[in-house]
């Protein structure tokens, strides 16, 4: 990242020296239009990542000079932290559940709702509504639904004669409970992406298949889904990166508890790095998370490339 930032500067100065590399009379516009975004982006997005990498090799509490070089000790501390494994496991569970529950549900709804009609528009809007809701509000609503004393879940339990556990206070049930909220919150987003994909399929293709007597589900399986592969790849990408940065929803639901069993990578970073101002430790988590994101992005590019070639 550091080399990127410096090569930007080199590029800019080289460009202004050699006038023939720029269009005539465009220098004032470039000097006005480019710096704001570049400066803000570099200062508040790129440099913090570079700093995180630097901090990760030091023991620092955020005050005074940074002198206490500790090598890879912070990384060792993170990797052997007894709650880090749980946080990684939970983030992976979110990825898996998103892929095997959320996306199929979104696809099922999208196929039904890619048509036209008033009732269809109402349902589409309704299903998309949770996605627009702030994570904090969604988390609190579901915190009520799950509340063991006054919530909806124990009330339903009363009605069917089952004694419901305090799901958010239960080490086992807290994860499925959070997964249900995630599905509720985000399936509408994926549905919208799929609908956009489905609507871009030329209607003649579907019509032709129908005239040839191809059954409805065969059309879905052999025409519709293959033709929106790129929308699916994008959806998968968002599901994975979203799972890796899950934070806002967890805090109002379980706050990482009970006894740190429902942390995700970012709530773990918040709990053990930010709240305790352990910058080296937090930096190491950031770097690990960053590497995970880069790996996902690279894999994604490869897959997207293959999809486009087919």
């Amino acid at each position, binding site marked *: 990242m550091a080399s*990127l930032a410096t090569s930007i500067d080199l*590029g800019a100065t*080289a*460009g202004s020296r050699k006038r023939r*590399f*720029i269009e005539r009379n*465009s220098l004032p*516009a*470039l000097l*006005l*239009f*480019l710096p*704001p*975004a*570049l400066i*803000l*982006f570099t200062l*508040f*997005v790129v*440099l*913090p*990542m570079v*700093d995180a990498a630097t901090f990760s090799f030091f023991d620092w509490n955020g005050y005074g000079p940074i002198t206490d070089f500790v090598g890879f000790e912070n990384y060792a501390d993170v990797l052997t932290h007894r709650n880090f494994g749980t946080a990684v496991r939970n983030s992976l569970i979110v990825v898996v559940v998103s892929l095997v529950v959320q996306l199929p549900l979104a696809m099922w*709804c999208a196929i*039904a709702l890619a*048509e036209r009609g008033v009732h269809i528009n109402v*349902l589409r*809007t309704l299903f*998309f*509504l*949770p996605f*627009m*809701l702030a994570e*904090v*509000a969604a988390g*609190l*609503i579901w*915190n*009520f639904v799950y509340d063991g004393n*006054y919530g*909806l879940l124990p009330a339903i339990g009363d009605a069917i004669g089952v004694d419901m556990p305090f799901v958010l206070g239960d080490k086992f049930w807290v994860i499925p409970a959070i997964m249900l909220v995630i599905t*509720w919150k985000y399936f509408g987003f994926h549905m919208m*992406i799929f609908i956009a994909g489905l609507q871009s399929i030329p209607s003649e293709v579907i019509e032709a298949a*129908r005239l040839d007597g191809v059954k*409805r589900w065969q059309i879905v399986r052999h025409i519709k889904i293959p033709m929106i592969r*790129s*929308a699916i790849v994008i959806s998968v990408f968002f599901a994975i990166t979203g799972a890796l*940065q899950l*934070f*806002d929803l967890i*805090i109002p639901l379980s706050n990482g508890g009970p006894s740190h069993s429902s942390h995700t990578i*970012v709530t773990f970073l918040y709990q053990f790095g*930010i709240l305790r101002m352990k*910058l080296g430790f*937090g930096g190491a988590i*950031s770097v690990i*998370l*960053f590497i995970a*994101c*880069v790996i996902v992005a690279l894999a994604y590019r490869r897959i997207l490339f293959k999809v486009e070639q087919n």
Partner: protein
Amino acid sequence: MATSSRKRQPVTTPIQWLTLLVVALFVIVPFYTTALGGFKEIGELRVNPFGLPASWDPIRFVEIMGGPRYFASLWNSLLIAGGTVLLSTLVASMTAFALAHIKFFGSKFILGYLMLGLLFPSATGILPLFIKMRDLGMLDSHWGIIVVQVAFSVSFSVLLFHNFFKELPKELIDAARMDNCGYIKIFWYITLPLSLPIIATVGVFNFVGSWNSFLLPLIVLNSEDKYTWPLGIMQFKGQFGSDWPRILAFLTLSIMPAIAFFLLAQRYIISGLTGGAVKG
């Protein structure tokens, strides 16, 4: 079934309708119980979870709206979201214009550099960001949040603007260039007025993102009078513990503006999502 009808298959099968109905219930019930819960007594919640409340006394809603917290935190959120939208629209559209219409050495490189922001979540750098904001004196201030949110939104906003500007007829700009019109004037008098749909999309998108954001204000703000509504509501929950009717009333009042806004602006949100996602 009617699948073999000659002209047109029915749009949706009964099984699909049934599942859509179940999913619709799944989506609605939490909203429904939240909205009614503000009217119920605490004991009523458990024994009468789905029915209408015994009385429609709006006492809790009135109390919250008369209290110091509700309107103040909504106003803070509105200020921050408004500032973020204005600044990010300007900054991102200028950059995207330069990258889409002005030929210069390194423009592809700069676009690629800015798109790096799409690859990793902003949360990864949050701790060093906090230190940087502290060193620059940006903590506990609304403008500090605005500036950082604009920086976070640059990548996606530039992408949307860039895609849109590329589609504009090139002849317009060439003609203006022939008349010796500078790029700054072209941007302001030709491109921007033609770009209202994408401005609305990017604006709505960044507005919602800022309105809902939690982690950044949580880390930056200290004084309660500067709290945004997500911070206010978390504090309210912390204070009233399990006085659910009161919390549900506060929740209902807090999400109503957002739902109203969403119903008005969803067209732009969806075109932003699908335009950025399906194309990009």
